[in-house]
């Protein structure tokens, strides 16, 4: 299969590879996929609790080149967005940006799921925090 230049670029120079501390209250972690299906994405966001802006995003992906490119692109897009803006990223945006063929659309769906899972995890953490703040005040 021929890959688009953008997929090749992300594969050869993946952006924001790495891991952040899962226990950090400002870090949301999303892990989606399964090894037996051939792809697993881990996506993390670090949010500024004052502004709600995503200051850092990291990923690690087990999967084909398109899965790696989709998650690498997602981390680029997440940085600088607010948590709510991040939730507006659609898999079709990733498909268009990377010119993914139909058989690779599931890679973009997985990336969207990973974003939602990471933001969801962060929101769960902050929800717990604001509650405890409420109790103590």
């Amino acid at each position, binding site marked *: 299969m021929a890959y688009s230049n953008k997929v090749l670029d992300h594969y050869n120079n993946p952006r924001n590879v790495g891991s952040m501390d899962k226990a950090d209250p400002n870090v949301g972690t999303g892990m989606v996929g399964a090894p037996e299906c051939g792809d*697993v994405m881990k996506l993390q966001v670090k949010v500024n609790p004052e502004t709600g802006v995503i200051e850092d995003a990291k990923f690690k992906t087990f*999967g*084909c080149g398109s*899965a790696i490119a989709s998650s690498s692109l997602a981390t680029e897009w997440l940085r600088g967005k607010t948590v709510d803006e991040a939730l507006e990223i659609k898999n079709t945006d990733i498909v268009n940006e990377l010119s993914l063929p139909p*058989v690779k659309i599931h890679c973009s769906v997985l990336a969207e799921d990973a974003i939602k899972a990471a933001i969801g995890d962060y929101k769960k953490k902050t929800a717990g925090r604001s509650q405890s703040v409420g109790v103590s005040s």
Partner: protein
Amino acid sequence: MVYPGRLEIDDAMKLPIYMDNHATTPVDPRVFEAMKPYFTTVFGNSASRNHSFGWEAEEATEKARKQIAAIIGATAKEIVFTSGATESNNLAIKGVAEMYAEKGNHIITAATEHKAVLDTCKRLEKDGVRVTYLAVQQNGLVDLDQLREAITDKTILITIMYANNEIGVLQPIAEIGKIAKERGVLFHTDATQAVGKVPVDVIKENVDLLSISAHKMYGPKGVGALYVRRRNPRVQLTAQIDGGGHERGMRSGTLNVPGIVGLGEACALAKAEMPEESKRMEYLRDKMKDRLLASLDEVYINGTMEHRLPNNLNISFAYVEGESLLMGINDIAVSSGSACTSATLEPSYVLKALGAGDDLAHSSIRFGLGRFNTEEEVDYVTAKVIDVVKKLRELSPLYEMHKEGIDLTKVQWTAH
């Protein structure tokens, strides 16, 4: 030796490197030379009995018949020319099922056979034939006790491949042949990957039907043969292609004279060079295997190393997905059992049959060494694979979890 038509980059090693010789092989230039006159000069129809054009063509096909018979220990009259191993498998299995329908309607095969055998069996099931698909052991070999137990008084055919096209394991053909003979059941073997690579002897191994393909042994595409035993027992087949009654009525159609000459020459070369070539293949393959195992952790060889083609290495690099690995070694032509590289988006059914788990199938690479691979190429491929696997593991959340001591089988994954 140079590849015909390969890109010349420098005097030494040329890129891309072809290491997918189970898929197909380049035509050996010596084979090509032997074929050439039969396209334009000696172009006759070997079935033309009344002029020299026909006689010359016939002489060529009969010489090839002898060359092919010689490499499997058969006689020339037992060779039926076909368009390739897929047709040979179809003719053997369907031909026996039809011819021996009164005797029985049961066929035994294995889960790891090539699709040309499996899909032929599935077709016959629709027509009322009963098929047993033997599971294989973790080493890729059929269990002979299971085979014995599967035979009934309705069994007419056992069809088990000689060498597997993905993992290269060699089935215990002589033992299967012995069991088949004792029980009065015909034995067909798809020997596409084996002929020319390892010694094959249809007499010693009690094989009744054997499929051969030219393009897997440095011959041309579109030509193959089926060995059909003529004595002890005399095997009969119902033709699957009707017409002018060529090949003693078993396979009609004007013979592909240049192709057949190529197959014959490929067999003659393989027979003469096999002792040296198989040693060289094994040396290069083992050098590659040993280096990969020494340089990388969590690497698994699929199928037994004990009974294996000398040119095959099928290996899973855990926590790295096969297609992404192929992408990183894009100047090397190999195959993967990953779902992403298959048309069906399913991981390799052969690797799944070994029971190793889908995740290792997704991480597998098949290296198929060939006559024209050099030691320099093998060293280059090995180093590049090690480099790319390491790079992709840096990217792999699974490798990170493994390093943290997390048991991945106990993680709740979100299926998608």
